[in-house]
Every structure is written in structure tokens, then in C-alpha cells.
């Protein structure tokens, strides 16, 4: 009973599940849940009964399709995005990008060759 009431919102309260509210409506809703359990209905059927009457608003967890999809996808997307950024940052810092040595101009290169030859000689 409590298990079902925990996942249903007392629709006249501020953010309280049916299981914890003292409002009259929550009291009635608990009564309905009890009766339906006695009538042998499944958890799924009972929750659907309330959704049919109050809409998705009555679910403490938003449904995974429709407008509630965003809140379910977002943490995963955020984890991937922020995680990958963290990884890229670390990899970027791991090999400090030292500037490549400047290229020698042709004359300088010739002078280096010249100097080498002289050194060898």
C-alpha cells in the first residue's frame, strides 16, 4: 500500500506524496488504493487509475515518454558531455603543447650546413 502511495502525488499539496500527506484528498486516495488492492488490482492498474483521473502530474516520478523524457535523458547527457570535456581537458594538459621549434630560413639552414662541414673538417 505504502509502496504505491509513495509514488503518487497528493495533488493539492506542495510536493508531498500521498503516503505522507495529512490532507483529506490524500486520505481518500489512500482509501481508494486500499480498496483496489483488496479488489485484486495490480500496482500498475492502480497507478493507471490515478493517472487517468489526474494526469501525469500525479506521478512523483515523471513518465519516461512525453514532456518528462527531458528530465530522464538530461543527467545521462550531462554526464557524457561534462565527463568528455573533463577527459579532453586532462588529455590536453597531459601533453603540454610546446610550440614546435621555429623553422630555419634557407640562408640560416645553409649557414648551419656550412658550419657543420667546417666542424667536420
Amino acid at each position, binding site marked *: 500500500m505504502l509502496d504505491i502511495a509513495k509514488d503518487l502525488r497528493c495533488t493539492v499539496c506542495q510536493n508531498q*506524496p500521498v503516503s505522507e500527506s495529512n490532507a483529506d484528498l490524500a486520505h481518500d486516495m489512500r482509501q481508494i488504493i486500499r480498496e483496489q488492492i483488496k479488489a485484486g488490482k495490480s500496482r500498475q492498474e492502480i497507478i493507471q487509475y490515478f493517472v487517468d483521473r489526474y494526469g501525469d502530474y500525479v506521478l512523483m516520478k*515523471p513518465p519516461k515518454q512525453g514532456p518528462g523524457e527531458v528530465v530522464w535523458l538530461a543527467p545521462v547527457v550531462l554526464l557524457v558531455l561534462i565527463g568528455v570535456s573533463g577527459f579532453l581537458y586532462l588529455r590536453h594538459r597531459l601533453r603540454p603543447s610546446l610550440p614546435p621549434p621555429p623553422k630555419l630560413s634557407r640562408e640560416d639552414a645553409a649557414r648551419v650546413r656550412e658550419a657543420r662541414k667546417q666542424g667536420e673538417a
Partner: protein
Amino acid sequence: MLANTVSLNLIELGHFCAYLAMIVALVQGLAPIAAHLLKQPRLAQLSVNASVAVFALTTIGGLSLVHAFVTSNFSVQYVAQNSNTLLPIFYKVAALWGGHEGSLYLWVWILTLYTMIVGWHGRRQYPEHLPVILAVEGWLMVGFFGLILFLSNPFTRLFPVPAEGNDLNPLLQDPGMVGHPPMLYLGYVGFSVPFAFAMTALITRWRSELWVGLIRRWALIAWGFLTTGIILGGWWAYYELGWGGYWAWDPVENASFMPWLLGTALVHSITVQDRRRMLHAWNIFLVISTFSLSLLGTFLVRSGVLSSVHAFAVDPGRGAYILAFMTIVLVVSFGIFMVRGRYQEAEEAITSFLSRESLFVWNNVLFLVACASVLLGTLYPLALDALSGEKITVGAPYFNTVMVPIFLVMILLMAVGPLVPWRKANPQRLRSRLLIPAVIGIAVAAGMFVALPRAHWTGPVAVGFALFALANLLIDYLRAVAQRRLQLKENFWRACVKTVLGNRRHYGGMIVHFGIVIITLGLVGSGLFRSETTVTMGPGDVAEVAGERLRFDGITQFHRENYDTVQGRLTLLNSGREVKPERRTYPRQQAPTTETSIDSTALRDVYVVMNESNDPNKWAIHIYVNPLVRFIWSGGFIIIGGLFLSLSGRRRARGAEASAAAAEPAG
């Protein structure tokens, strides 16, 4: 009559002082700008004097309000709405922040207090940057005074003067509620100091190694107050609201939790910047975001947008002002960050993925994901309702599903992180160090899986991780003690104390981690292993929950200073102790309120709520048995203790660094 005139004049004086404070705050904000434009550097010093004057003026305004509350001056509308003559004096003073207008005033008063302290503290240490820091704070004050004086003014007068005031909400007539808002605000506003430093650093191109060490303390202080405020709020909710829990993922709670999450990321990443000269720009981003979330937290709770999106529109002026203020703060601060953020000096490179700095980055990734998820879960239903009229609920089960796994990984990181040295860890050595703690953690988790097969999987995993962390902490500490004894030939106890005192920053942090371990155990115990039942009981009836047997002995009725009460008496047959839940009736409130009664021991709380039943001679008694709740509050005290230790450490000097390096695990 004379006394009345005096108090009338006092409130007008206070009102006048508040206006004056706004003008002086404006001067404080303008002084450095004027100094720059007019090329008169000395003009900037004006903002230092202004910060003292603003504090004095705001204090006078606040005291005049306190005076109005204490003398029950109902010609002040705010007093008439939130207080009455029957209220004990303690709550009359606290009623100052019982409503919207007064709590904003408290906010701005705390802001002027912090600003004055920064002004005093900085006049020797960083005099050339001080005026700009104070100017940033000054502009924030102007924004808040504007909201207070023009849109939600606590000084507004009421005519005709009512003979008696409304009541302070009975839920707020409670010691927990007296301390909770100021603590929370000290935390929120505390983050304005790092914010002002970061803005100043960007504007004046202050080299980060010179200022990051300075904001570390401020950030820790703000974080400590925020943590205290949140735990105090949980404690209050636990014994006052009567549903057996302490945290409901309510938007109001999330509002304070978001800055806490980013603030936690901040106090970690500041350390990286301080020690390893990395993450400069990232820290500035975190500072700005944390403070913005503090503002958001204040406004979410104080704008009425949460009770319904439409309440926000009932008072369009206030809503629009708040929205505009937030937008300006965000645009200006992030704008300056975008333009100036690039000047930041070159960063040091990372030597290895397996290093403390790298793990700190992962810590930040997790806290950021956690914070962004809470933000979205809190704001999305509001936005959806406002934009499309479609209503959905994002409640506790959602947040538990999403946040608990993130929290578990955080604990794991917390267990390993402090053992990993800066720069580069030796994997073999690390493995051998982690072996014993890991075996302990796994053994306990496996034992729990076997012993409690019906518990949710997160329970054993969380306990396993927490004990893994605990074993790591202890072994690491004992190793440092042993090393010290070997070097200095000290006796055991002396070495134990000296090790901690010699490296207060490190061990302060480790004590905070220890507090988190304790809280984790408390959360698992009370979150997953709660038992509850409701029984209709008459005198002599006995109820049994989770091995606890309670006998209902009857009721007593009596009258107190500001309420009438019906008190039930129940005896816990296992220990012989009594619990006395109440139904209270406050004047001016229609429905009676429940007052829970808790019998608390180290291992479990028996939590009793009494309600009327259909039978006038019987009462509906709701009994919860909550294991390990005390661990949560104790963990809070441990965290505060660790924080004090960490703050008491002197700023890192060259000499201290050598001993710190000795005490830290060497790769």
C-alpha cells in the same frame, strides 16, 4: 503615549537609514569607477569608508525593525503580519526573518557585514584591489536595497493600526527555525566574497596565485555556514513536520542544495589551483556559478514562484525585478569572464592521469553533473508549466534514482583521492595501499547482501564504499603517525595530536570526509531501513514496530504562553522511557498542528506523531522506527569540527610546506 511616539519615530529613522544605506552603497559602487575616470586614485578609498557606513546604517535600520517587533508595534505592516503580543520574545526577534521582506533585509544586512569585514581585513593585505572588491559588493547591495525599498519594504506602515498582529507561522516557532535561515544566508552571502574577488581579479588583471589563497578561506567559511544551514533545516524538518523524514527533494531544499554542490566543487578545485597552478579560469567560472545559484536559491524561495508559477505573476513588479536582477548579474559577470578570462596565466601541465589533480577534475565533473541535474529537475516543471501549461511532478523518487548513483561514485572518489599523490602516483604502491581497505569494504557489502537480501542494492554498496573510505582514512592517518614516531621518537598519543596539528589543512579536510562517511551510514540506515505503522490507540493499548513496543497511557491537556496543547503519553516498554507527542492549537490558526516526540538513541529513533481518530477516546498514533538518524546530525558536527581545524591552519608558508609534504602520502 510618549513611548509610542518614540517607537514611531524609531521605525521612521530606520526607514530613512535604509534609504541612506542604499545611497552610500551606490557611492561605494561608483567610487573606484570615478577614481579611474577622473584619474584620482585616492577617490577609490572612499569605498572603504562607505562600506563601514553602509553597515552602520543597515544595522540601525535592522535594529529599528527588531525594536518594532519586540514592542509589538503593529503600525508596521510587516510586524502586524508576522508577530503578535503573545509570542515569546525569542520568537518576536526571530520573526524578523519569518517573512519575505524581513528575510531579504537580513540578507542585505549580512552582505554589508561581510563587506565591512573584507574591507577591514584587506586594508593591509591587498589595498590596491580592495576598492574594486568593495565596489562589486556595493553594486550587489544596491540591487538588493532596490528590491527591498521599492518592492518589498519591511518598513511600510499600516493604517488604521490593528490591535493585534497575525501570528508567526507555528511551524516557524521553533529553535531550529530561528537558526536555519541566518545560517543559510551566511552561506549564500558568504559566496559573494569569492565572487567579488573573482570579478576584481578579472577587472584589474590580478594574478591568480595572489588571490586564490585569499578566497580559499572565504569559500570554506561560506561552505561551512551553508552546510550547517542545510543540516539544521533537515533537523528542523525531521522533528517538526511529522512525516518521519528530513529531506524531501522539495524545490526549497534543492534551492540550497545546488549552491552547496557547486560550493563543494569549488573548495576542492581551489586547492588544485593553490597547490598546482591549474584550473584558473575554471575556478572563476565556479565562483560565479556558485554565487549565481545562491542568488537563485534566495529568489526561488522568496519570490513565491515555487508554490505556483502563477503566484509569481500576482506581484509582477517583484517577479520582473528579480528576473532582471538575476539577468544583469549573470550577463555582467559572465560577460567580464568571457572578455577578460583569457588573460589568465599559463597553466602547469598534468604529469599523469593517475594523480590527485586529475582526480580533483573528476570530482568537479561529478559535482557539476549533480548540480545541473538538480537544477533541471527543479526548474523544468516550472518552465514547462509556465510555457505550455502542462504539469508534471519531479519528486523525491526521481531525484533518488538519479542522484544516488552519482553520490556513490563521489564516495568512491572520496575514498581513493586523498591517497593519490600530486603529479604522479605509483600504481603498484597505490594498489597495495588500497588492498586492505578494499577487502574490508567488499566484505562488509557482501555480508550485508547476504544478511539483508531484501534491501535495495544501493544500501550495501553505499556502506561498502563508506567503510572503504573510512579504512583508507584511518590507515593513512596511522601511517603518518607511525612515520612521525619513527622520526621524532615521540610517544603514541603525542604523535597522534601533533600529526593533526602539524598539517591542519589536510587533516581538517580528512575530518570533513569522516563526517561525510558517518552521514552516509545515517542516510542508508534511515533511508532504506525505516519501519512505520499507524495504530488507533486508546489508554492501555500496546503497539509493536520493528521490535519496539509502545503502550499508550493517556493524554493531558494544558495551556502554554502562546498555545493550548493536548499531550499524549506513551511508554516504550523496552526501555521504560516516555514519548509525549502533542496536538497544539495556536490562536489565530484554525487547524491544530502536530508536535512529534522522538526517543533517540545512537542506533535508532522512535518517532511518534499523534492525530485525532474517529473515536473521541482514541488517537491515531503514527510510529516510525528510523535507524541511525543520529549519525546524520553527528556527521554534521564532525564536518564543522574539521572545518574549524582546516581554517585554523595558517596560510601555506614555505616552512609549513615541507612538513606538509612529509605528512602527505608520498607516491
